[in-house]
């Protein structure tokens, strides 16, 4: 094993140690467990956006649609169909992922800014549907009431509704599974074609890769991951509302990915940490907290175009 591989492994081990021990150390630095849960869910969403943006080079500006659909799918199932947390997650993931895949087939021929525009448009369609269809979705007031249900594992039952630490670990378990799946795909021959498309679409095409098909698959996978994160988000709040589908929410995810470092697998998670922590602390001081996040974003883009994690890596290499 080379020194660099060893260091990489050490960093990843440290990251997982920090995540696993979060309920222990977070209170010591003034945090609380639910904040950690939020970071994981939003971080997973930002990583899903980055799966497409950072590794295929395709910017979707409407990914909140699949996030929000995941949340509604999960919430609707829990409210109307069955009292089961895993089924809720499954329903949300399938709803957002399948709709994302279907609409994705219509838009993968567009590129660059046109692709981004069309994704915004589709995202807004779902936003207005959720907003207007009050009888089903609760409209502007959001979908409620529904509650995440205890997990029945056969030999024991875990109460994730009242016990926030247990819920944190449940979300961490889901996060780990999704992150592992993403990493697995990116290290596969298919994942390497995604990176090839990011690096040089023309070269990739003339190496015999049908670009549209591969972008569509990457887009669809990204939608499934996004909807999975959205389902978890519904469980975090026991609530789903149209703002989760809005393009400004999509913008937040893109911001997290870019701020953290979009060429880096874990960059968006760091972006989510910065975003959520700033939001939590600054919003208790001023309602204009978004100005400060915006300011930070501009500074990062201007001075660390590779994002915070990219900057840290560059420093270490130098």
């Amino acid at each position: 094993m080379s020194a660099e591989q060893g260091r990489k492994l050490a960093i990843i081990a440290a990251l997982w140690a920090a995540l696993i021990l979060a309920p222990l150390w977070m209170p010591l630095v003034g945090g609380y467990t639910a904040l950690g849960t939020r970071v994981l869910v939003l971080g997973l969403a930002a990583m899903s956006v980055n799966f497409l943006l950072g590794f295929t080079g395709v910017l979707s500006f409407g990914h909140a649609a699949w996030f929000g659909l995941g949340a509604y799918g999960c919430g609707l199932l829990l409210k109307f169909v069955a009292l089961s947390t895993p089924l809720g997650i499954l329903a949300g993931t399938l709803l957002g992922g399948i709709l994302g895949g279907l609409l994705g087939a219509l838009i993968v021929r567009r590129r660059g800014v046109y692709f981004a525009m069309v994704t915004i448009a589709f995202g807004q369609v779902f936003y207005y549907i959720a907003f207007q269809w009050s009888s089903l979705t609760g409209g502007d007031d959001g979908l409620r009431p529904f509650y995440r249900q205890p997990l029945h594992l056969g030999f024991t039952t875990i109460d994730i509704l009242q016990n926030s630490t247990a819920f944190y670990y449940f979300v961490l378990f889901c996060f780990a599974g999704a992150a592992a799946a993403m990493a697995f795909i990116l290290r596969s021959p298919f994942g390497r074609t995604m990176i090839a498309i990011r690096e040089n679409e023309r070269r990739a095409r003339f190496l015999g890769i049908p670009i549209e098909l591969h972008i569509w698959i990457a887009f669809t996978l990204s939608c499934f991951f996004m909807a999975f994160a959205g389902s978890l988000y519904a469980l975090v709040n026991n609530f789903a509302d149209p703002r989760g589908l809005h393009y400004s929410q999509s913008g937040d995810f893109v911001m997290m990915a870019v701020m953290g470092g979009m060429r880096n697998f874990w960059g968006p998670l760091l972006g989510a940490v910065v975003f959520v922590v700033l939001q939590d602390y600054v919003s208790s001081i001023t309602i204009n907290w978004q100005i400060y996040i915006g300011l930070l974003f501009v500074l990062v883009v201007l001075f660390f175009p590779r994002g915070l994690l990219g900057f840290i890596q560059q420093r270490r290499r130098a």
Partner: protein
Amino acid sequence: MSLLEVSHASKHFGSLVAVRDVSLKVAKGELRAIIGPNGAGKTTFFNLISGFFPPTTGTVSFDGEDVTGLSVARRVTRGMARTFQITEIFPELTVFENLRVGAEVAAGYRLRPWIGKNAIAAVKRSVDEILDLTRLSAKATRLVGELAHGDQRAAEIAMALTLKPRLLLLDEPTAGMGEQETYEITQMVRRLHREKSFTIVLIEHDMRVVFHLADRITVLDQGALLAEGTPPEIAANEAVQAAYLGKAA
């Protein structure tokens, strides 16, 4: 039988006729050079062959099959590979990683979420073989974007070779190169042709390279076929001399 047969191909861009009724037959194992003054339509003609865009009229056949309407990916599957006048590579990947993409596509793995140890080893072997053939082995772990221009051009040809092509289309392989680099690339193309029996069609500006390498030469001028023949025939052709030196000459 000819491997590549272009018949009466034309390409119009609005009112501009970039390629006008050009026909071409390239035999298996041949090295054909396409030359012509700037704006003669050489690259447009290449784009018709490789499927970058379809011809307005005319057909392209490859190994007896009409491929005129086929996508780039399908042409690659049938054995066509090309390089570009302006180097097209994956700059932030290493030389090895650049070639691996092509090797995995050629092996039919591009949609696989997983490949086994044996498949990984086979891919590595075929990449190593081509690195050796193109004299890039020592630079395998370097980022291709950081290499010298000549090595980047060589890497692009190497990428095309990973596809195990039956026809190699090279668009100005020596573009922008110094003396030494031009010599090395010329030697490499010669090796591919003589030792590995690749069928090659290349566009080239450097006449020394063309006359050194080509079995036959096709001359385009203002989108139309001006002449075709062996290097001595082309050198003696008055119409070709006129096109190159200006009509007044």
